[in-house]
C-alpha cells in the first residue's frame, strides 16, 4: 500500500487517533460538539465517575481535541476542531490516493480486455 503523504510522520495525528480510538471519548466529543460542559455535567450524562471522566478529558486535551478553561471553577471542556479536521483529511487523502490508483487500473483493464478480445491469447 502507499502512504498518502509521502514519508511524513505526524505525532500529533497519532495522538489524535489514539484518543479517538476509545468509544467513550468519542461519545464525550460528540456531547461537547453541541456545547461546552463541565466534568460534573459529563459524569451525570455518562455512566461514569467524575474521576473516570477526568481521565478521558486529559487524554482528549493532550491530543488537542479539547481545551479546558483554566480560571473558571467549573473548568468547562470545549471541543477544538482542528486536530479532528486533520485526522479526517488524512483519511480523505488516503482514500483519494487509492481511488485514483483504482481508476487508472479500471482504464488499464479496459484496454487489456480489448487487446485480449482482438488478439486472442496475450
Amino acid at each position, binding site marked *: 500500500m502507499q502512504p498518502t503523504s509521502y514519508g511524513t510522520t505526524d505525532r500529533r495525528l497519532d495522538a489524535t487517533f489514539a484518543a*479517538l480510538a476509545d468509544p467513550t471519548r468519542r461519545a464525550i466529543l*460528540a456531547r461537547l*460538539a453541541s456545547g461546552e460542559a463541565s466534568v460534573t455535567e459529563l459524569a451525570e450524562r455518562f455512566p461514569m465517575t467524575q474521576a473516570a471522566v477526568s481521565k478521558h478529558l486529559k487524554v482528549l486535551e493532550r491530543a488537542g481535541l479539547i481545551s479546558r478553561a483554566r480560571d473558571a471553577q467549573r473548568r468547562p471542556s470545549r471541543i477544538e476542531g482542528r486536530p479532528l479536521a486533520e485526522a479526517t483529511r488524512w*483519511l480523505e487523502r488516503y482514500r483519494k*490516493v487509492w481511488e485514483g490508483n*483504482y481508476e487508472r487500473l479500471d482504464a488499464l483493464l479496459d484496454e487489456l480486455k480489448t487487446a485480449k478480445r482482438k488478439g486472442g491469447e496475450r
Partner: protein
Amino acid sequence: MMANAAKLEITTPGDREIAMTRVFDAPRELVFDAWTKPELLTRWLGIHNGWTFAVCEVDLRVGGKFRFVWRGPDGNEMGMGGTYTEIVRPERLVSTERFDESWYPGEAVDTLVLTEKDGRTTSTLTMRLESKEARDVVLRSGMESGIEAGYARLDGLLGSQVRT
C-alpha cells in the same frame, strides 16, 4: 468506463488490519497481471500528481523480491519493497512491504485476494501491521468507520466551527 459506480470500501477486519475492497469490470487474471507485471504496474500504481515510477522490479516467485521507487515532479524519491510469500495466480498474492522512509513502524504484510463472478473481479487488499506500535495506522482507518457509522453528526457539527 464502467457502467456501475465502483465504490472503494475501507474496513478494519482485525486489530492490526486495514482492508480495501473494490470491484473491477474485468476477469481476475487481468487484475492479477496488473499487480505483478512491471509494464502494467507502472501504468497505474501510485502515479499521480506528477509522480512516476523510477524503479519497478518484480521477481514473482515465493521468496522473490519486488522493488518500487517513485519519483516526484520535484525530484524527490520514495521507495518501498518486499518479498512475495504466497503466489496463487490468479486468486491470491501475499507479500511483505516496507517503505525506505517508513510512515509506520516495522513491516506490513499485504494480502491480495481476487474472486471472480460473471467476468467481474472483487479485489480485497488487506494490509496487516506487524506491531503494536504500528496501530496508529489501524486507528487512522478505524476513524473512518467511526466517522461514517456514527460521527457524521459530529463531523457536520464541526464543519462550521473548524479552525484551521
